[in-house]
């Protein structure tokens, strides 16, 4: 499964280092559940793309330290992504599996 990172820096095990906003990462379901339950702010790729971040913005604001200069529009999209990530975390905490928590297609 493909996820997108929304935080400043997360280490998942010894080999995965996430440090860019919107960074794409392939994780197995158990890996993703462990990371999300461990506080790693991730959303599934499909939802992230639906939120509609501009490519230039993702380049420009790859470092979370740069978000102080970001536009209101970008920050609103970031907040929407964070709310989705939080909802996903809460569903996992309540015992749902990641597959069950995935967004359903139309």
């Amino acid at each position, binding site marked *: 499964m493909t996820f997108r990172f*929304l*935080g*400043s*820096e*997360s*280490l*998942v*095990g010894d080999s995965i280092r996430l440090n860019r906003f919107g960074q794409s990462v392939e994780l197995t379901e158990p*890996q993703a559940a*462990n*990371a999300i*339950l*461990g*506080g*790693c*702010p991730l959303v599934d790729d499909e939802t992230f793309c639906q939120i509609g971040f501009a490519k230039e913005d993702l380049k420009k604001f790859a470092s*979370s*330290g740069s*978000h*102080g200069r970001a536009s209101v529009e970008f*920050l609103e999209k970031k*907040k929407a992504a*964070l*709310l989705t*990530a*939080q909802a996903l*975390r809460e569903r996992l905490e309540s015992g749902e599996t990641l597959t069950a928590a995935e967004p359903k297609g139309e």
Partner: protein
Amino acid sequence: MSNFSNTRMQRLYVQPEATWAVIPNTGGTATLAGSNCCRMSSLVINQTQQEIVRSDKTGSLGLTMGLLGRRAATWSAKMSLAPNGAAGVKPDMDPFLAAIMGKLAVVNTGVSVVYGLDDNSPSVTIWDFNTPGTITQRCALGAVASKAKFDIGVDEPQVEFSGPAEAILDTDVYATADTVSKGGLTQASFPTEPTTPVTNGVAPPGFTGVITLDGQAYATFRTGSISVDVDRELPMDGFNSYYGLAPAAGLRNVAADWSMYDDDSAVLSALKVKAYAGTPVNITFQIGTVAGSIWVFLLKNVLLPKPQYDLSGKRRFVTFNGARTHDTTIGAKDAFQITVQ
């Protein structure tokens, strides 16, 4: 050939306990997971057991063998002030913050995580794993937080938590440990370290942010610290018990020390006047400027100590040491609050 352990190859995992001194478990098997990992710069857990020396005379100056007394345990953990990095998500150190503050955080999704004070004594299980895995691995169970100290204004802001614990369990003694030390575990062997630890966030530069003293922002602030002493202990005088009793808490005492450049501004002068008059003020130390990586320490009803002047540097400093916070009303529990936003 035996193996040694490098001290940098150590990992801390922390889990909130639903019941004091019961290691989180399902059917006797620990529920420890990679998601419980928290980066730290120092973790020390220790158990002591004094010898009860028989006082009766033997007619000799030699010491006769005594009996083993009660078992006491302590812990301390120091780590950088790393928030999650995403606003509204708990930092990895959340169980420690809840333990020192006395209750769980309030999460405002996408915005902030707020830690307020309460009179409870939440406990945690602290796991201390080291490489190689064949070396002694340990955990402290029934650990309560008694003290915390937060750095303000330094390059890498850190926090240190410490307190007593009920017992230390380790790989060497697991098979023969008593039920108290096992903390509810019945699995065949000591839990192994999770294979995929997850850690998040980077501490903001500790010298960035906003320092607000009595409603005025000061750019002349240098460094300081906040000390939280909630005076929790595990009473070691219970009859028929080799271990501490359930947590007891004393008076909460939160105080700040800081140093700033002295100047002749009207606002600083007014602050000094309030120190002499005993007029309480509110103080906010904000560390960090980027959403998701900001700490805000709110200290209310602070009775300022008398300013002390320090001429040891090229420019004169004024220091306030032991600025103590107070609840607004009895039982308000609002003397101190931490917000991660």
